[in-house]
Structures are given as structure tokens and as C-alpha cells.
């Protein structure tokens, strides 16, 4: 009675052992055949195509301290003394400059009113000097950015253009006579005029600065930065308030200074 189970167990053990051996042989054979296939050149996948050009590393933006923002005025609008529709109007912005270029403003800040409408604090090209006020964002066009700043030194009689904070241009200048002083403060470049008048040289930049004494000057007495037909007078206090440069200098500045560049006159 006890011998039959022992024999049955033995047979079962032998069968299991045989199955394991066969399985192991199959695994080894399959592994070997795939290894052979991968090494055969006629069935290997082709190498990836070389890209036509390389994508450079991600491009970080420059130091934000040197970036200024400007926009065109797309809708004539009153400038208000607070960011809300019922605030006092303090000036008026047209869509065009007296030179018939698109009017632009330097953007200083933003705020939302109670209704959630966005308002932008802008530097206004109007008297008194250094006037700022609020306009609806809806009255402005695309945001544009510059990384340049022109610093005009009235005592040193020179102008320095900085790009990303570094000086990239310097020139001697002529400024307003004592009776017609060049205004001081924070302004910006708002137009670029290829001049047809030799008096202004080949190029003139319109700025947001206005003469406080020549208010009856044609088109309101805006201060320009331009060339000259009398370079021998430079540097000096020779103008009606404009900033004059030698023609070679204004042309060089023209290659470096975009519209929207902040202008500090001190």
C-alpha cells in the first residue's frame, strides 16, 4: 500500500525536471537567435537623419533693469490723473505726432480699476515736463521693448547711449542757449525723421520733451535730437533747446537708437 505513492511522486518529479530542462533549452535558443538577429547589418534600422541645423541653447532675456516698454497710441484718449474713467483729465493723447508719425508713449506702470479694466501709466509728451498719467490699455497698441537709454549731460555737453547698461555711443552736443534752455528730466524718443532740411542734418529724432519757453514754436516746440549744418559750433549752448550733434554722430546714433528709447536729460 505505501510503495505506490512513492513511485507516483518519483514519476512526477522526473516529468517536472524534464519540462524545466526543455524550457531552459528553448529560452537559451530564443535568446541566442535574437542576439544574432540584432547583430546582422541587413536587418538593423538606419541611423537617425542628421538635423539640417542645430537648435541653440535656450535664450535667456537680458537684465530687466535695462528694459523699457513703449506702445503706440491707437485711439485718441484723455490722460487721467488716476486709473479710472472718472478721474481728472490732465492731458490729451492723439494717435499722431506733429511729424505725422504714429504717436508713442513710454509705459511706466499698470493698474486695474474696480471693473477689472486695465490702465497704463504713461509718460506724456506734454507740459509741464515729466508729466505722467493714466490711459486705458485699450487705447494702446502692441507692447514694444527697448534695451537702450540715452543720457544727455547738459554740463558736460555730451550724450551717451547705453545698451543693456553699457555705453555704446558718446558724442559732443550742442544744447539750448540760456534763454531757451533744454528741458531736464525723463523723456523718450518718439519719432525718427529722415531730414530734408540741411539745418537739421540728415537725421532727426523727435522726443517727448517740450520747450517750456518756446510754446509758440511751430508744432508746439518739441525738442529734437538731430544733426547740424554748423558743426563748428559744437559743443556749446547754441540751440533753441534741441540737442544737436555732428552729422557723422547722428548717423551713428541712428544705427543704434530705436524709437521708444528713454532719454534722461540732466
Amino acid at each position, binding site marked *: 500500500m505505501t510503495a505506490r505513492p512513492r513511485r507516483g511522486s518519483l514519476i512526477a518529479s522526473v516529468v517536472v525536471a524534464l519540462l524545466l530542462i526543455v524550457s531552459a533549452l528553448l529560452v537559451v535558443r530564443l535568446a541566442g537567435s535574437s542576439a544574432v538577429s540584432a547583430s546582422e547589418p541587413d536587418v538593423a534600422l538606419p541611423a537617425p537623419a542628421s538635423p*539640417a541645423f*542645430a537648435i541653440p*541653447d*535656450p*535664450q535667456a532675456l537680458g537684465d530687466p533693469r535695462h528694459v523699457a516698454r513703449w506702445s503706440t497710441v491707437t485711439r485718441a484718449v484723455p490722460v487721467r490723473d488716476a486709473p479710472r474713467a472718472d478721474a481728472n483729465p490732465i492731458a490729451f493723447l492723439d494717435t499722431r505726432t506733429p511729424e505725422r508719425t*504714429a504717436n508713442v508713449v513710454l509705459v511706466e506702470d499698470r493698474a486695474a480699476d474696480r*471693473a477689472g479694466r486695465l490702465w497704463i501709466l504713461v509718460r506724456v509728451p506734454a507740459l509741464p515736463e515729466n508729466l505722467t498719467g493714466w490711459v486705458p490699455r485699450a487705447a494702446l497698441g502692441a507692447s514694444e521693448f527697448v534695451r537702450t537709454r540715452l543720457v544727455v549731460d547738459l554740463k558736460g555737453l555730451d550724450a551717451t547711449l547705453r545698451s543693456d547698461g553699457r555705453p555704446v555711443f558718446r558724442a559732443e552736443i550742442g544744447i539750448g542757449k540760456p534763454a531757451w534752455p533744454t528741458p531736464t528730466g525723463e523723456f523718450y524718443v518718439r519719432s525718427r*525723421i529722415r531730414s530734408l532740411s540741411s539745418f537739421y542734418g540728415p537725421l532727426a529724432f*523727435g522726443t517727448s520733451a517740450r520747450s517750456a519757453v518756446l510754446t509758440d514754436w511751430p508744432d508746439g516746440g518739441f525738442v529734437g535730437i538731430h544733426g547740424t549744418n554748423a558743426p563748428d559750433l559744437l559743443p556749446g549752448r547754441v540751440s533753441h533747446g534741441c540737442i544737436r550733434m555732428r552729422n557723422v554722430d547722428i548717423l551713428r546714433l541712428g544705427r543704434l537708437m530705436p524709437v521708444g528709447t528713454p532719454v534722461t536729460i540732466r
Partner: protein
Amino acid sequence: MEIDLTLDELDPAGAICEAHENVHRDSRATFLRKATVGGAALVGALSVVPAGGSQSANDVDILNYALTLEYLQASFYTEAKRVRALRGKAREAAEVVGAVERAHVQALRSALGSAAVARPTFNFAGVTKDQRQFLKTAVAFEDLAVGAYKAQAPRIRSKPILAVAVSIHSVEARHAAWMRRLFGIVPAASAFDDPVSKPEATRIVASTGFITSSGKTEREAEPRFTG
């Protein structure tokens, strides 16, 4: 939550900014004019000639089309960073993605050389100043870019250019997933993505009014400054 986002669904007006209200309130004629401006910028990418012998006109056209979409994205993220209205993870994402999109622009411009289309003027009308609107727009832009690259890839004749396009396409897909996650929608809800044809992409971008004409700030004249 799954939202079928397209750019023409954006309504940046609302409580954000009046500028877009103006777009939506425009007369049909004005709207079509604006749409034409936006569309022209994209269609312009189809009219260039090859820069050199190595790229076919067909591939140059496609690269310029890609460049225009990259201009759109790069300008969007650049403005978002510069107006400094974003916070937290959205700000971080905008910074990283923006730097990558600018790299795409630089690469495509370099490859195209003098055949590269000029950057259009973009007016995002306050969308970059609101975190929620920013993310919604970013999702739409990234999805659009993914679909546009997908549509053009089979049309590219040069394998090396196709290699570049595919490498950009997968990065745009990562961006799309990232922005979708931040916006709170499923990053990858579909088993298969649909391509977006060029006319459809042009229509979508034009409908936003984001591509605008820039006013001229330069002219030839006799100046009348104080002198």
C-alpha cells in the same frame, strides 16, 4: 476636466482689458481687415524664394511658416516675462518655455538667412498681465504649434530639415502638456492628435487680433523741432 481650446474661443476682454472688447465689437469690415493683416503675415511665409540651393522652395516655405508661429510664441512669453504679472509655477514655466521659443526663432532665422520673414507686430491686449488668461492662451498657442508642425512634417522633402522639425515638434508637445497641467486640464487626453492645416492655423491666429499692423514711427520730412 477637458476643454477643447482654440484661440478663437479666447475672450481676453471680460474683466481683463478693453482692447479685446474692441476686437470683438469691430464691424465685420474692420474685423476682416484685421484678419487680413494677421493672415497676410502668415501667408507671406508662403511666398519666399529659397535662400540657397540646399533648401527647396517648399521647405523654405514651411520653415518660414514655422518661424511665424515661433515669433508668435516667443513674443508672447517674452512680453509675459517683461510685464512681470505672472507668479509661481506659471512664471517659472513662462521663463523656461520663452527661452526655448526664442531659441527656435534664432535657429530658424539663422537657417533661413535673408529668406526669413520679418517678425510681425503682436498686440496681446493685456492677456499677458493676467495669470489665468495667460495660461489659457499658452495652452492654445502650444496646441496650435503641435498641430501645425504635425501637419507640415509629412510635406517636408529634406530629411535633415524633417529631423529638425520633429525635434521641435516634440518639444512643443512637452510645452503643451506643461501648460495644460498648469491650466488644470488633462495634458494628454487623446490617443491620437489631429494636425492643424495652415489655413486653419491662419484663421485661428487672425481671429484673435493678436497680429496687428504697427504704426509708422519713421518718415521723411522737414523737421519742425525747436532746432
